[in-house]
Structures are given as C-alpha cells and as structure tokens.
C-alpha cells in the first residue's frame, strides 16, 4: 500500500455511503408505498415506515391489476418471454454469423460483415415509422414474433464473438480437421464450450435489454393481453379522471424491477465482464 489508510478513509466511506443511499432512496420510498393503503400514500407527507398491506397490494397487482388495467402476472410472463427470446435469439444468430465470418472464405463475406456493422448505427428510435410499417405489413402487430424478431439482429454480440473467435488458436481447427471432423462438429464440440463465459456474460446484458424495452412494445402492441410490465405501468399511471392507485402501481413497479436486478446482482461477475468486454 502506498500510504496508510488513516485520515481521509472516513471521508471516502462517507461519500460511498451517501452514494449508496441516494441510489437506494427512490426504491425504498417505492417499496414503502407498496405496503400502504391509498389513503396513507395520499396523506402528504407519506410515512417512510413500511405498512402492513404488502401481501394485499402485491396480490391485487398480480392477480387483478388496477381498475382499468390487466393483472400483472400476465405482464410478467410477457416480459419474461420477450427477454428470453431476445437474449437467446441474439446469442444464437450472432454465434452463427460470427462463426461464418471468421472461419470461412466466401464471396460477399465483407458485404455481410458491413451489413451487420451498419445495424449498430440504426437504433430502432431513428427508424420507427418504416420499421413499424414493415411489421404491420407482415401482420406481426400484437404478436410475440413482431415484438421480438426485429430486435434480434445484434451487431454488438456478433463483434464480441468475432473478437473472441479470432483469439482461438488455429491449432484447434487443424486438430479437428485431422480428426476428420467437419465445421459444424468443430463449432459444437470446440467453439461453443470455449465461448461459455462470453455467452453467460452476454446473456445477462441482453436479458436486461429485452426486459427493459419500451418504445418497441409501445408501438407494436395495442392489445392489453400483450402488455409487457414496463409498458403496463405507464398505462396504469394514465388513469384519466380516476385517482391513480398508487399502492398497486408501486407494487407493480417493484415487481418490474426484481427480475432484472436479481439477474444483475446474482450474476455480477459475468455481467461486468460482458459489459467491459463488449464496451456496450
């Protein structure tokens, strides 16, 4: 150590503690609100001590929803399907295309490579109307394919796998060739097991990406049974003339955060690796 940790250490800890508390404060207030009755929430200032209505509010949210809403359990399922399909789909097609680009010489290889590269520059936000039109022409509105497939192309994942494949020693390819194994055999028995950590890391990031999508489901789904939870909350807040049912909305907000936060915290090591490796 450079110098002993004496004075100054407590300042450092103080900064970190203030940081942690600031980051946690909105969540804490949300949690408290999700355990109160509507009357308690509306009585400004709202108490900052959790109340006794936790189970009641969460079961209302899960199984019946707000007055003009749908039950959250269905939304959670929709979000889960969307996140899983996007994460798995992106990983699979990126693995395949990275494998093709790195291990095969074929005409048009660079054309394909650049075509994938270009997708990096075209976030859905800048091409919303024409993309919406394509999906509606294909009659994919209000469907899971419409919700997921357009988001599955991924330049970032393809690049990550490409970078990684290029570090795999050539000797491994030669060895499998001598053993008489074809390319797909090499892919399955050598490349996939070697990519395990990268896949895990990427999965965490892509799961969260899928779970947190907002603009795309907002455009593609109008049928309430297709609501993802992130979209559902916004619909609950637009209660019109009715008083927003804050305790139920706040319980829903907690439910919307738990899965992705759990994934990040539980898989922290891979998450950080995936983030720093792909720089995205």
């Amino acid at each position, binding site marked *: 150590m450079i110098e002993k940790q004496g004075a100054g250490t407590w300042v450092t800890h103080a900064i970190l503690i203030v940081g942690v508390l600031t980051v946690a404060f909105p969540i804490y207030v*949300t949690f408290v609100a999700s355990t109160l009755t509507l009357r308690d929430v509306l009585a400004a200032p709202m108490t900052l001590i959790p109340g006794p209505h936790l189970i009641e509010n969460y079961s209302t949210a899960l199984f019946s929803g707000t007055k003009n809403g749908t039950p959250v359990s269905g939304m959670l399922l929709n979000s889960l399907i969307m996140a899983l399909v996007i994460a798995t789909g992106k990983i699979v097609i990126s693995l395949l295309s990275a494998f093709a*680009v790195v291990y095969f010489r074929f005409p048009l290889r660079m054309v394909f490579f650049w075509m994938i590269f270009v997708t990096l520059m075209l976030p859905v936000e800048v091409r919303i109307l024409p993309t919406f039109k394509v999906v509606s022409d294909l009659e994919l509105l209000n469907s899971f394919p419409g919700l997921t497939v357009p988001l599955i192309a991924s330049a970032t994942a393809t690049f990550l796998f490409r970078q990684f494949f290029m570090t795999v020693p050539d000797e491994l390819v030669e060895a499998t060739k001598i053993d008489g194994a074809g390319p797909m055999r090499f892919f399955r028995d050598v490349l996939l097991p070697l990519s395990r950590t990268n896949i895990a890391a990427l999965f965490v990031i892509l799961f969260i990406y899928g779970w947190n999508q907002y603009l795309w489901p907002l455009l593609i789904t109008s049928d309430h049974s297709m609501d993802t939870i992130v979209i559902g909350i916004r619909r609950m807040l637009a209660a019109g003339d009715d008083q927003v049912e804050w305790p139920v909305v706040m319980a829903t907000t907690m439910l919307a955060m738990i899965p992705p936060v759990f994934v990040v915290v539980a898989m922290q090591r891979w998450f*950080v690796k995936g983030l720093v490796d792909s720089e995205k």
Partner: protein
Amino acid sequence: MRVRVGYNNKVLPYILVAPQILITLVFFIWPASQAIYQAVQRQDPFGLRTRFVGLDNFAAILEDPGYLNSLSVTAIFSLSVAALALGLALLLAVSADRVIRGATTYKTLLIWPYAVAPAIAGVLWMFLFNPTIGSISFVLKALGYNWNHLLDGNQAMILVVLAATWKQISYNFIFFLAGLQAIPKSLIEAAAIDGAGRTRRFWTIILPLLSPTAFFLLVVNIVYAFFDTFGIIHAVTSGGPARATEILVYKVYYDAFEALDLGGSAAQSVILMAIVISLTVVQFRYVERRVHY
C-alpha cells in the same frame, strides 16, 4: 481480419449468416432506406398522394421553431445527464477504488440501477416529485419552494435529468472502476515517493490515464441520453409542459404517430441517423486506438 486456417464450403457459410442477414435486411436496411426515401417525399395526411419534394422537408424542419426548440432541449438534456452521470460516477469510483474493506459490497450496492428500465426510473422519480403527494416535493414546499413539474418547464427538465442520471451512474461507475484498477500501482507509488500528494496524483496521473475511458463514456452517455431515455420522457412528461422536455427522439415519435407528419418525421429520422453514425464512428476510432495500445 487475419488470414487463418478456415473452411472451404460453398453453401454452409451462407446458411450460417442467413438469419442475421435476413433480419438485418427486413428490419434495418429496408426501413432505413424507406426513411431516407420518405424524407424527400411529401404525403397528404390520408396517405393517398405522395410527391417528390427534394430537400424541402429538411428545409421546413430547420425553419420550424418546434424543431429548433427540440434541438436545444436535447442539447441541454444530454449535456446535463452526461456531465452529472460522469462526474458522480467518477467520484464514487475513485472512492470505491480507495477503500480496501467493503469495496465489493459498495460495488454491488451501486451497480444494480443498471438493471432498472429507464421508464421505471422515470416513474420512481416522478413519484418522489409528485406535486401533491411526493416526499421530495413536500420537503421542497416546506422550504418555501413550490414544486410542480406539470406546470414548470425547468422543473420538468430537472426531473427527467435526475431520473436519467440516476439510471446511468452505475454504468459509468463500472467502467471508471475497471479503468482505475487497470492503472499500474507502481506508477502511483513512484509519484508518492516523489512527494506528490493524493490530490496532485489524481490530477497529474490518474485523470490523464483515465481520459480514454472518460471519453468513451462521454460518447456512450450522449447516445444514451439521445435514444435510450425515450421511456423516461414518454412516461414522465410526454415532452411537456409546453414542449420543455421534447427531445429529438420523442419528437420523431410524436410527429410520426400523433401528428402524422410522415415526411417531416422521416427527415428528422435521417438527421438522427447522421448523428448516430458520427457518434458510432467516433466510438470505434477510440476502440481501434485502444486495441493498438
């Protein structure tokens, strides 16, 4: 790409890239070219007639006070978010790098907002600042400051900046911490032996070595503020009050889906594409340079 032992197969590589290329063509390349095509067309509101108008749509946009307003709103918003999120994350990362005991705990407690959707982050802060029932707005009122972001444009802007920053700090924190931990300890020790104090070491050694990371993060943060914050704006303010928080992406959405001005919206999309492309190029320059270090 270096030459290596590969496979020669006439069909297989095409099958392998097919899914990716198909999705890219159908959902990226085709819509993007449609956007460019529409940007030079004008369509009547019912979509019955279109005619070629050249760069008229662009000219109309650049003269539209609404668009110019949106440009300045976006500039203020993204610069505030980037400055706040980078500054606070750096402060926290330097602190976390300094503590020996508890660094991992702090890290875990600080990284999880990454997992929260921007729209949800918006809802959290909107609840705290709700003019009638919010805890923070209550305290502000008690201090004699009247908070109502539904009426006051500046307050609405502060609210969306806070929510967007809160969400982004953890991302920057991870990169800054990784950057700090990659700085060779011997360098810092040498400076310490030469008598450089903590502050001096930070400004003359740590910060310059961290500047590539900081620059990369600046670009990422601007891209984030431009595009990923749509959910915050849509859920919290809907661009209001009086367009005070109407960032460019929200305006593209609004003009296309609410105002049905297709040509204008497409022209705005094309301008946004140009912005993303230049930011991506900058980002890749940085990545390339770093690879050669």
